[in-house]
């Protein structure tokens, strides 16, 4: 709902821009009976959409960069921005800050008309270059940065561009006719028309505020559904819901049933059924082989490897076997009783998993072709868990007493990680002072999260993370995704 409302408001904000000096100028510039009116309208529309897409995609990228530093809290800020814009739009307030600039008039004289208006379209689509007629534009700027999702930014920008182009494309071809003159005269003489549009934007902003509150628990994440333990292969994501295994293509809304407790990788799918692990082709579930693994409780598969985690007598063991020789088993790691090995994740021959003990936690990467392992992340205060890997990129959970984040970074020990998802503290904090005593303390009071971060998966475009309820049964887990 939030994305749809943003797009609608962006469209209306673009339409409102027609009432600017530049908007009227463009209509007059390309109005018939000049030659090449249609070509000019098309060029203007393309330019406006391109300009809008560039501006808002850039704003979203700024948002992703800032969010990487932990500096954005859209769940709290977005409703405030949207409501402030709604109030000012409803009151028809004067626009501040205003940009008192116009497109270069001489272009229409020195350039072919379609080229000139195409460039005018780019400038008007960029938004920041000329008069702004609505607070909704500034609110969209802030919201796009806060949401920090480039795809949403592009969609909002194109909607803004379409909004700027559509009135021009409708009015300019008839502006020389009596009906066209009446339309332009009505636009020029009836400011109530702009007020109606601004009130429509106010309504849209209220809807955005409501929708923003609706996503408070998961920030900018998209809810995928109930379930846990995602894995990906190309654009296919597979997870286990309370009703069984689910397979979904990222580009489609439909889902298909697969066996529960399944993992995908490359062209393969594997699942565990009791202590039996089945490996099959992902395309048609044709069985490749089945093996018995006592105590198995997690698996990972790729085109060449099968990795299993088993827990026997309280001791975790990770074992690997080549798909070409499934009876040949190699033990990769064993955890002492007080430690835990995490769920394995595979991408080709690169395996990652976590090791957690009361002394600290670490993420281990293993190149299965050489059996060479290395610690790629570790912490003695936070816990780093549930890694996934794809193409040399690592994603994992980091939990401290103040926050829980999903971080993405290179599968090396160097380089910076970026936060792609953030939620509150893993436990409830007190207020930092005793009742009846001074409130003067700098002790942090982070909001507790409703969820505990759990297993992750990584595709070329999205990061998936399981959210376990902080209180109550883990069976109520949810799966969400965020843009990479």
């Amino acid at each position, binding site marked *: 709902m939030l994305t749809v409302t943003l797009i609608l408001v962006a469209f209306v904000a673009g339409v409102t821009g027609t009432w600017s000096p530049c908007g009227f100028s463009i209509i007059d510039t390309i109005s018939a009976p000049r030659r090449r009116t249609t070509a000019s309208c098309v060029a203007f529309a393309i330019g406006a959409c391109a300009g809008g897409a560039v501006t808002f995609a850039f704003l979203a990228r700024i948002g992703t960069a800032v969010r990487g530093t932990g500096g954005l809290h859209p769940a709290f800020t977005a409703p405030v921005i949207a409501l402030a814009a709604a109030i000012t739009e409803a009151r028809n307030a004067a626009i501040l800050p205003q940009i008192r600039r116009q497109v270069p008039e001489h272009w229409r004289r020195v350039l072919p008309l379609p080229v000139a208006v195409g460039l005018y379209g780019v400038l008007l689509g960029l938004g920041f270059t000329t008069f702004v007629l609505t607070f909704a534009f500034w609110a969209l700027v802030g919201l796009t940065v806060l949401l920090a999702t480039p795809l949403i930014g592009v969609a909002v920008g194109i909607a803004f561009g379409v909004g700027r182009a559509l009135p021009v494309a409708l009015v300019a071809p008839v502006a020389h006719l009596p009906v066209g003159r009446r339309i332009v005269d009505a636009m020029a003489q009836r400011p109530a028309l702009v007020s109606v549009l601004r009130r429509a934007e106010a309504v849209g902003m209220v809807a955005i505020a409501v929708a923003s509150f609706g996503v408070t628990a998961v920030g900018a994440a998209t809810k995928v559904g109930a379930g846990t333990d995602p894995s990906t292969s190309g654009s296919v994501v597979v997870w286990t819901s309370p009703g069984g295994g689910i397979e979904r293509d990222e580009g489609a809304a439909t889902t298909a049933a697969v066996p529960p407790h399944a993992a995908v990788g490359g062209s393969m799918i594997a699942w565990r059924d009791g202590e039996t692990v089945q490996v099959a082709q992902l395309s048609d579930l044709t069985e490749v082989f089945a093996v018995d693994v006592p105590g198995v409780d997690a698996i990972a598969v790729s085109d060449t490897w099968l990795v299993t985690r088993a827990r026997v007598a309280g001791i975790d063991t990770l074992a690997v076997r080549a798909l070409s020789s499934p009876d040949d088993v190699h033990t990769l790691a064993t955890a002492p009783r007080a430690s835990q090995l995490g769920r394995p994740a595979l991408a080709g021959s690169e395996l990652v998993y976590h090791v957690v003990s009361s*002394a600290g936690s670490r993420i281990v990467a293993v190149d299965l072709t050489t059996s060479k392992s290395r610690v790629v992340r570790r912490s003695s205060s936070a816990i780093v868990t549930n890694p996934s890997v794809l193409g040399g990129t690592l994603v994992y959970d980091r939990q*401290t*007493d103040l926050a829980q984040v999903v971080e993405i970074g290179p599968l090396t020990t160097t380089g910076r990680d970026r936060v792609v998802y953030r939620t509150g503290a893993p436990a409830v904090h007190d207020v930092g*002072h005793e009742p009846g005593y001074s*409130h*003067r303390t700098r002790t942090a009071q982070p909001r507790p999260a409703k969820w505990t971060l759990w297993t992750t998966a990584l595709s070329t475009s999205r990061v998936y993370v399981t959210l*376990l309820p902080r209180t109550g049964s*883990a069976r109520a887990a949810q799966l969400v995704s965020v843009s990479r």
Partner: protein
Amino acid sequence: MPDVAALTDELAASTSRRGFLARVSRMLALAAGAGAVSALVRPGEADAFHFCGHIYTTDSCPHPTGLPRVDAGGFPLRAADGHPVDDLGRAVNANGQPVDGNGRVMLDPDGRPLPSAPRTQVCQHGVAARLNRPTHIDGAWYRCCGGHIRKLIDCCAYTRQRINGDAALTGYCYAGRHVYCVMYYDTKIPC
């Protein structure tokens, strides 16, 4: 009448806690009478004291759940009920496993216990890591709080700056160390 606030601030930045309190008491006795002195130095009544027994403005040591309650070994406890917590602030059992409100081990969707987090000493580990230098628990003081005796503990380090960001005091610290932050330990001894 002298500016008592300015005098106390100046003294606070340049002397030990006990010496500071003594001097402030004497000055205030001269300036405002014995009644004002007793009102200002009584634990828990001055504006800057944020938990019972703490009689100066040094802030709490970073603690996983807020109020800096620790056990006898300096490990974090939840202030509300004295339950052990790990470094993430989650209640844990004797094995360090996170537990729910009923004391049951928290499980993942496969029925495995959720991963344990480290449980480290608030001063000797947590503050030391923050300061990147060793910390010490030197002396302490006991006061009556909520019907039980409470031990007030300074986390000491060779630092001129306390957690508040201003000048650190000597407090209960020895050997040239200063108070970086404060903690407390509740006994079961009634008072």
